[in-house]
């Protein structure tokens, strides 16, 4: 398989995972959160309703932002917002990482070029 086709196919898989399959992901607290919740009771919405646990010391996120918690703040539908947030995230990470690694590789070539000169 050609590299360009491989990258395109891989990107489509990542978009499908983040924009589609992620909607069916478990919404239970993850390993870290569940241990930090030990000692507390939680309500149906997952919020702490009583008891004493390490997670109570967690503050509000410092930034928050329109994509906070993998949703889009101005879209009411959790399904649509979650799906779009996943797609936006994948495209953003793809562009950012490719850009950063390209700069890194380019710096290397420039460095090698000046070394030969």
């Amino acid at each position, binding site marked *: 398989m050609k590299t360009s086709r*491989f990258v395109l196919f891989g990107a489509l898989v990542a978009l499908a995972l*983040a924009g589609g399959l992620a909607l069916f992901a478990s919404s239970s607290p993850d*390993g870290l959160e569940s241990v930090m919740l030990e000692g507390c009771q939680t309500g149906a919405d997952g919020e702490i309703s009583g008891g004493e646990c*390490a997670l109570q010391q967690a503050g509000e996120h410092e930034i928050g932002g329109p994509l906070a918690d*993998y*949703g889009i703040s101005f879209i009411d539908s959790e399904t649509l917002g979650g799906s779009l947030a996943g797609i936006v*995230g994948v495209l953003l990470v793809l562009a950012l990482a490719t850009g950063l690694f390209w700069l890194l590789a380019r710096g290397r070539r420039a460095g090698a070029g000046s070394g030969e000169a």
Partner: protein
Amino acid sequence: MSELALHIPNGIIGIPTSLVFGLIAAIVVGVCVVAARRGLDERLVPLAGLATAFIFAAQMLNFPVAAGVSGHLLGGALAAALLGPWLGVLCVTVVIGVQALLFADGGVTALGMNVVNMAVISTFVAYGVIALALKILGRTRTGLTAAVFAASVAGVVAASAGFVLEFAIGGEAPQSLGEVAGAILSVHVLIGVGEGLITAVAVTAVALTRPDLVYALRGSRLLGTSLEKETV
């Protein structure tokens, strides 16, 4: 709906500890930038970008590991197997940075600790296990699948041990440190098995289509020459 993924939020670990780990993360990531640059062929750039985007997507897929408890991929083993330890650390660091700054997943204050645990510890430990296991099992595809699975479990458990260390230094909980450590490590063995299954499938799929793109299979061969042969 609660968060899809949860890294260390701000407030759980004290500020001094967070800052020390922030400094450690900055130093190690800096070393990785220098080391990764040496082996970074321009043709590898889109693949490294793709691996990073894939890890971001896969981290959203929380799978159940016990009643009411989920886990998600960290991605260190995948990055290590496909891109090697240096570039691998950078991929996971980009993911964790984007999550903390744009998706409110993981505190900004806790960014250093999240990078040390999930990007640095998990990738380096996974790479060490892959290298060792491939020496024992041989550089075959079956050997690779088994090596990647073992590396995933080891990488995830080691990352969670990093959290236990940070919590021991700067955290407070009603239960004893031993109880926290036991609970964290045991649940991450289960998460590691999930990570192992996903990573083994993903790396094996890449090895079947484009074995030249699997860093762990490259050995001492130069990537440039093998890429040219395969893509013609």
